[in-house]
Every structure is written in structure tokens, then in C-alpha cells.
């Protein structure tokens, strides 16, 4: 009976995480809404976590440093969301009538 690690090559995980990461980058570049941009960044961070865990299982079997890294990535991402939502809320409260799109916030230029 083969274990999952023997059946599924590392490349599959890297492939999934690359797709996730690319979707995140595409989202950051194409979305107008500040909260949606933030969600896309979260997607990128999840890709990072997948990568770390996959590498930890396949290449670093004893120390699990990648797993620990993954946990820290998740924690820091949560902190980042809290902070970012606070700032975004403040921005759009100071601009009544806007819909939360980043291109409505353009007082600083060049």
C-alpha cells in the first residue's frame, strides 16, 4: 500500500499553488474595489501556505520548518486583514458617496 506522498508527486501541489498565486495576482491587478484587492492578496498568501506545507512534507521530513512557516503566514495574514480593513474603512468614511473603489481615491498624484 503506497502512501499519499508516494502516489502524488510534489509537482502537483506546486501546480495548484501556482494557479492560486496567479489568480491572486490577476485579482490584485484587475479589481477596482479595495476589499476585493485585499481578498486577492489573501489568495496569494494561501498559495504560499500550500507551497510551504508541500515542501515541508516532501523535502524537510524531520523538522517541519515549512509547516511552522505556513502557520505563521496564516496568522500574519489574519493580522494584515484586520489592519487593512481598518484603514480602508477609515478611507471611505472620509469620502461619503464613494463605493469603495480604489480609483476614487486619487488626491496624491505623481
Amino acid at each position, binding site marked *: 500500500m503506497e502512501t499519499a506522498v508516494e502516489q502524488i508527486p510534489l509537482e502537483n501541489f506546486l501546480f495548484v499553488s501556482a494557479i492560486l498565486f496567479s489568480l491572486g495576482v490577476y485579482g490584485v491587478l484587475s479589481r477596482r474595489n479595495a476589499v476585493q484587492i485585499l481578498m486577492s492578496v489573501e489568495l496569494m498568501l494561501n498559495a504560499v501556505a500550500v507551497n510551504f506545507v508541500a515542501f515541508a512534507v516532501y523535502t524537510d521530513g524531520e523538522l517541519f520548518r515549512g509547516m511552522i512557516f505556513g502557520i505563521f503566514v496564516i496568522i500574519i495574514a489574519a*493580522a494584515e486583514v484586520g*489592519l487593512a480593513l481598518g484603514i480602508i474603512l477609515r478611507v471611505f468614511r472620509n469620502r461619503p458617496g464613494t463605493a469603495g473603489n480604489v480609483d476614487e481615491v486619487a*488626491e496624491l498624484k505623481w
Partner: protein
Amino acid sequence: MRPDLNLDYALLVPEYILGLLALAIIVIDLMMPKIRKDALPFITAGGLAVAFAVSLLYIDTDDNFAGLLSIDDYTTFFRCFFIAVTFVTVLASAQYVQTHLRHPGEYYSLLVISTVGAIYMAAAQELLTAYIALELLSFSLYVLVSYAKMERRSNEAGMKYMLLGAFASALLLYGISFIYGASGSTSYAEIAAAFEGGTEGFTFGTLIGLTLIVAGLGFKVAAVPFHMWTPDAYEGAPLPITAYLSATSKAAGFALLLRLFSGALMPVIDDWQFMLAAVSAITMALGNLIAIQQRNIKRLLAYSSIGQVGYMLMGITALSPEVSSALLLHMTGYVITNMAAFTAIIAYHNASGAEDVSDFRGASDRAPLLAAVLTVALFSLAGMPLFAGFLTKFILFQSVADNGYFWLAALGVVASLVSLYYYLTVIKEMYVSAPPDSFQQEGRFRIPLIMQGAVIVLTLGVFFVGLYPAPLFELTDSVAAVLFTS
């Protein structure tokens, strides 16, 4: 499993002091509402002075904490460096915070916390620690940049900085994950050991990793293709935070880059050297050229600081012990000069509300001391002889040229010439243009004694580095040597 972890908590005492100080400031702010207005900056400054003195006890230590943070002369140098920068920023903020910002307690304690992040960025010898330290500094700065929460420009700057910063750290992390995958470790020394044996089989992964790390860290230090947040964050942020951004956040980025690239990524130098050379060249050229058309003094200094990042990246590109020493020297000179310039601008802004270059007309009549200090600082930034900027740039360019990047050094000299133009436009406004009509009634600005003292000390520092650099040069030499001995 490694049973021999060195958990000697005494190595981290300066950071404990800073952490407690940050906590104490908030508690004092809460418990004693009567004293808080004017006493807080001085309590903070006192605590920072204690931390500075304690840091000096670690000279010549060569140890590490659990393989995560190395406490050596390099760390001690940056501990003193960052604590000193925060000290100056806190003193320069005192009046500004009182008149412009609410919640001074959190302001000062976030400054202190971000100092801890900066110190750990210099001390980290492991990627996870380096990343957490980087985020500690960045998160504090996101809040501080948007600290004037009722002001639309400050909010906007904070939001842009925050969103782009989060994007950049995601890129950095994805890069780190590939380096981890290729080398099987997150510790700098083990990564170097793994790469020594060659990178066959994962060349492509390593290359992706290196590219993304350069992009992510390039964002943090504001190198050109990743610089778009810089002018906005500088312009929107409260003035003392702009000063702090231009000093600590840059120096910390370079402290991390220097230790990472000399410690972990040296064996794969051929894979990243050309990237950094290209980034450095565009950064110098573009930063200095765009600065020419700026009308706001904060934006002008933002682009000037981008240009300066180009010079410093040169030092990472041609990485060697003597270039690192020159880089540390240039960084010290640049930070002293920049703090002098910004302290003078803060004092002038407190008195006049000025932010545009044209508001500085006739400054030599309205505030002669500040105009003189700003002139010295701007000449030094442009690299005129006598001042710090000339000497440190000269040594940096020379050592870079000696290490095979003559074209980069030559480009740096041309970029410095360009920069002289826009620095001179500010000086022209101050000395040649007549002061506005209101000058007749108002007379000279009154500058608080503490600001006068601060700008004079910083100006003396600029002259000291420019005229008698030998002690500082010996210091940076011995500090840089630490990176290359292990």
C-alpha cells in the same frame, strides 16, 4: 532535532527594554491624562537612551539566539543606529504631534515597536524571523502613515502603502517558499551550504525564488519598478513619519538585504547579480529624473530618496567586504543628512504650515538657521565636497568600480549631477527669492530650542562624517567584516 539551542534570553535585553517602553507609554498615556501632552516624547526619548546604552554592552559579542537571531557587531551597530534614528524622530515629533495628531501614546509606542522590527531585520539569520521582523516594521508603519485619521491625504497614503505592501510581502513569501524548497532550510547558513553544492535539478525554482525575493524586498526599500507607493506615502504621511520612513524603513531593508545576500545567497551570486545591477541602474536614473519636476518638498525628497536607494543597491550588487563597509558608511551618512533635512523641514512646517517648494521662498530671512541647515543637508545629499554625501558616495562608487561595476559607478556620478539641479531649486527659493509680504508683520519664525539643538547636532554630524570619517570608516569596516567571516 537540535538539542543544542542557545536560549540565552539575556542577549535580547535591549529589545525587552523597547517592548516594555512601548507598553509603558500606552499605560502612562491612559493613567495619567494630565502629564501626557508634553511629557510623553521625553519619556520615550529617555527609554530609548537607556536601550541605546544597554545595546553598547553587546560590543564584541558573537553569539546567536536559538539560531534565529545573531547578536554580533553587525546587530549592535544597527541596534544603536535604529534607536538613535527613533530618538531623533521622537524629539522632532514632539511639537508636530501636539498640534496635528490625536492619540500621542499609540504614536510613540508604535514608533518604538517598529524600531524593534527594524533591529530584528538586521539581526535575523533565518528567513521566518526575518519575515516576521519585516512585517512588525511594516505593520507599524502602515498605521503611522495613516495616523492623521481625519485627513484624507493621510488615509489615502496609508491605504496605498498597505495594499501594495501586502502584495509585495505575498511576492516575497512566494519567493522564500521556493528558496526553502530548493535548499531544504530556512536558516541562512544552511541555505548557503545547500547552494554551495550546486543548484542542479532546481535551477528554475531557485531563479523564481530569487526574482520574487528581489521584487519583494525591492518594494520595501522602494527600488524603481516597485517604487510607486513611495511618493504617495511620503506626501500623505505626517511629516515626522516621512522622515522615519526615509531613514529606518530603508536602512532596515538594506540591513536585511546585506545579511541575506552575503550570508545565504552568496553561492548563487551569478543568478541575482545582474537583476540587482539592472534595478540599481533604473532606480538611480528614474528617481533623480522624476524628482526634477516635483513641487512638493516631501515628494521631492521622496524621489531623491529613491535615487539614493539606487546608489545603495549598487553596494549590494557588487557585494564584497569592502563594498559592504562602504555601503554601511554611505547609509549612515545618508541617514544623518536626511534626518537633518527633515528636522529642519518639520521645524519650518510647524512655524509656517509650508509643504511646497515655493513656500520656502525667503526662508533665509524668515528662519536663517533652518535655511542654512537645509542647504547643508541638500548639498550633502547631492554629494558636494565638505559634506558627508561627497565622501561616502566617493568611497562607495570607488569600491563598486573596483569590484567590476565601473559602468554602474559612472551612472551614479551622472545621476548625482542631475540631482544637484533639483536640490539647487530649493536652495534658490530659500536664498534668492524674496520672502512673502506677510514677513514684514510676522518677522522671523520662532523655533523651539529643542528643534534648534537637534538640527545643529545633526548638521555637525554631517560635517563630522564629511571631514573626519576615519573613526566611522573603521567602525563600518569591522562591522562588515562580521558578515564575511563565518
